[in-house]
Structures are given as structure tokens and as C-alpha cells.
């Protein structure tokens, strides 16, 4: 689930980039403080975005610190934390833990097993704090695994579960904004799952592994269709976002939703053109 949701720095002003970075550092700091080094290693841009979004919707009080860290020992930099950073850190642990579980199951990878062992304790804490999110993620992943085992010909069935999973993670509080946040997470989860399947297609094919897009790959306009579907998911995400009362950091959030999420896609397409040429 990681690695798709980020900013497009070229379309952001310097202060906007610094703002995103300060939240990234804040999330890193929170992960380290609450869960130690194993937690810190799970840090992702994806959950930085969640902290940014929830911070903009609920505007919790922020703490900004100038700090140095092990990764940047020389340069002092800002780290912004607030109540939503703590929540995003928990979701980061949750998703990272299940990614390790998934990796370990896929090919018994040592990295997955080691990661899982290291995250076992943080995960138990998160499960105690956010049982609804944890149950939704576990349940969706189980269903996805079952659909993959039976090599389901229906990509929507798999995509739906991926959406449900991230949708649950986007709901921090049970209030009037929950449906819109869930819908945003849902659309993003679908987008990420489809991007992942699209990106891995050739590799899966080579290794004889299941890929949910198998039924679509044979179509002559496969790539155009993928772009249409991915665009549709993101348009749903923005539609849900428009409902929310965001004024703070709106430009950064829209940068992510309209451009940042397409970073890997753009790279993939340029590589595809290169190999064709």
C-alpha cells in the first residue's frame, strides 16, 4: 500500500514543500517516540498525507520543534506534530505490519518475517487503540488473499476490498466528516491497488503469479483503459475531498490528489515509451 501517495515537489512553492517535510519529520519523530526504531523504519509519505489531511480537517493544536536527528545530524529542521500525527503513526504501524505479514506469506521472505517480529509489539498497541480499523484491514486482506488464491476473474471484487481497507484507516473520528474521509480513503485505496497491479503486471506474468488485471491485459487499448480507470478513482477521491471544510494546506493536499499520486505512473509510462522506442 505504500509509496504512491506523495507530493509533486515541482508544482509546490518552497514553503509548501517545507510544510510537507515538517509533517514528514513530525511523523518520523512520533513513530520513534512511541514505537522506537522499529516503528521509525515504517515511516511513509502516504501516512504523512493522512496526517496532513486530518490536520487540515480537524485543525488540532500543533507543536513545532526545531531538531536534529540521526538521519540529518548536521542540519536543524522543523518537525510538526499534533493529535492527527499520532493517529497517522498508528495507521502507519498497522499497514506496515500487515505488509510484512503479506510479504512473509508471499514468498516466505526473511525481510517480511523479521519485520513482522519487530512490529509485533507496536501492532498489539495499535490494535488495542483502534480495533475497528485493525479489524477492517485484517478482514479485507484476508478476502483479497482468498480471491487471489481462487484467481478471481473480477478485478472489482479485489479493488473493493483494497478500498474498504484504506477507507477504514482514514476515519479518525466518528462524526459528520467520517463519510467523506472514508470515501477519500476508499478511492485512494482502490487507486493504489490498481496502480500496484498495473506496475507489477509484467513481473507477475513472468513468474506465473496471479494479477487481477489479467482479464484486461489482452485488450488492444489496455493502457488507455487503465488511465481512465485510475483517473476515475482519483476524481471520486477529489469529489469527496471537496465536501470537507479545508482551508489550511489545501494547495498541498490538492497537489497530492491531482499530481503527486501520479508520480510512479508518470515514471512507468516514460519507461514504457523508452522500451517501445
Amino acid at each position, binding site marked *: 500500500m505504500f509509496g504512491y501517495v506523495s507530493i*509533486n*515537489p*515541482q*508544482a509546490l512553492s*518552497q514553503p509548501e*514543500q517545507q510544510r*510537507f*517535510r515538517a509533517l*514528514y519529520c513530525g511523523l518520523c519523530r512520533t513513530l520513534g517516540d512511541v514505537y522506537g526504531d522499529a516503528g521509525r523504519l515504517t515511516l511513509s*509519505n502516504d501516512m504523512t498525507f493522512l496526517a496532513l489531511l486530518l490536520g487540515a480537517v480537524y*485543525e*488540532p*493544536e500543533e507543536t513545532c520543534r526545531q531538531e536534529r536527528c540521526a*538521519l*540529518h545530524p548536521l542540519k536543524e529542521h522543523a518537525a510538526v506534530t499534533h493529535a492527527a500525527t499520532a493517529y497517522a503513526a498508528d495507521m502507519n504501524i498497522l499497514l506496515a505490519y500487515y505488509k510484512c505479514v503479506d510479504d512473509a506469506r508471499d514468498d516466505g521472505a526473511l525481510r517480511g518475517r523479521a519485520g513482522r517480529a519487530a512490529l509485533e509489539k507496536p501492532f498489539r498497541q495499535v490494535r488495542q487503540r483502534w480495533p475497528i480499523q485493525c479489524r477492517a484491514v485484517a478482514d479485507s486482506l484476508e478476502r483479497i488473499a482468498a480471491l487471489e488464491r481462487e484467481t478471481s476473474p*473480477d478485478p*472489482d471484487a479485489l*479493488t*473493493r476490498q483494497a*478500498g474498504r481497507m484504506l477507507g477504514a484507516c482514514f476515519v479518525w473520528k466518528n*462524526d*459528520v*466528516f467520517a*463519510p467523506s474521509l*472514508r*470515501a477519500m480513503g*476508499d*478511492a485512494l485505496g*482502490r487507486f493504489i491497488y490498481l496502480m500496484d497491479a498495473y506496475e507489477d503486471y509484467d513481473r507477475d506474468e513472468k513468474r506465473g503469479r496471479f494479477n487481477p488485471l489479467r482479464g*484486461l491485459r489482452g485488450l488492444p487499448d489496455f493502457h488507455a*483503459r487503465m*488511465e*481512465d*480507470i485510475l*483517473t*476515475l*478513482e482519483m*476524481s*471520486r477521491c*477529489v*469529489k*469527496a475531498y*471537496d*465536501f470537507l*471544510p*479545508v*482551508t*489550511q494546506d489545501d*494547495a498541498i493536499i*490538492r*497537489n497530492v*490528489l*491531482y*499530481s*503527486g499520486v*501520479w*508520480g510512479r505512473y*508518470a*515514471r512507468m509510462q*516514460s519507461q514504457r515509451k523508452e522500451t517501445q522506442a
Partner: protein
Amino acid sequence: MNDPYQVLGVSPSASDEEVKAAYRRLAKLYHPDRNNGSEEAERKMMQVNDAYAQIMDMRKGGGASQQYYGGYSAGYGGAGQAQQRAPEFSAVRAQLSMGRYQQALQMLEQMEARSGEWYFLYAVVRHGLGDDIAALNFARQAVNMDPTNMEYLSFLQQLNMGGQQYRQQGMSFGGIQNFLCQNPCLTCLLFNLCCGGGCGTRVWCC
């Protein structure tokens, strides 16, 4: 129930941005972080939240969940359409007009005849269930089978419209394309987030 516009202190003709700004002003005032858990502030906050959601529901057409699986209503059932409709589908259309997608899906899956209309209705149902891939697929198929049918065509256009709007609005935020800079060093920085920043361009990772 109070008038939601009155609660937020804006006129009904206010823009979405003005409504959001008014909400933010009041939300700051009654924010739990700033009111030491006062019950009065909490009650006010809930009122403001509800008023805001009510206004947005009215403006954006039914809550977020409905927005999301909004389904398709404009096309079918409209009077004055000269298109031929097979009577065998009237029961399916009746279910659709009530938003009963599961029932409509079951009925369609039991049918044998796979005409253009079947593909169209199947696309509408899958769209209603939130299945974008199938919806686009089957809508295209319906249009291919019967390119002159306006109902099928307008549904396919409606499916694609959200994406077109998104692409257009996205231009001012960097968009899908123009993501890769010509400068290979920048490109490297952009995607290889752990590269040491030695190129003189500040990137927010390591």
C-alpha cells in the same frame, strides 16, 4: 432545526469557499483543544458541524456516501426517448430506479440474451455498486454493439465526465503529465527519495 446558514452566519448565496471559511472561524472558537472540554463548546461545535454538513449535502447532492455510489439516474426512465426498449428489461429498470442494485444484478445474471441493452444495464448496475472497471468495460461494450443509442452513449460520457473534470482541474496543481522534468538530476531526486541531495536541489527526504 435551525437554518444551517444562520448557524454559520453566512448567506445562502455564499460561495463554497466562504462557507468553509465561516466554518473554520467557528470551529476555532469552539475547538475542544481550546475550551478545556467545556460541554457548551462541545454542543456548539456539533451544531456547527451539522450545519456545515447540511449545507454541503444540499450543494453537492446528498451525503458523501451517496456522492460516491451515486449511481446513474439521469438517463433511464426519462420520457420522450425514442430508443427501443425490450420489455424483458422493464423489471430490471424498475429495480434500478429504486436503487436496488443487488436485485437488478441477480436478475441480469439470470438472463440469457446478451443484447446491447443487457450490457448497458449491467454497466449501470456495476457502477451503482461502485465497480468502476466493470462499469466502464460493459458501457463501452454496449456502445460498440449499438453506437446510435443515445442512452448508452450518454451513460458512457457521464462515466468519463468525472475523469475529464479531474484532468482539467488538475492542470493548475501539476497534473498527471508534465510530471517528469527534463533535467535528469531532478528526476532522480524526485523518485529516488533517498538520494543525498548532492545536486543542489532541496528535496524533503534525506
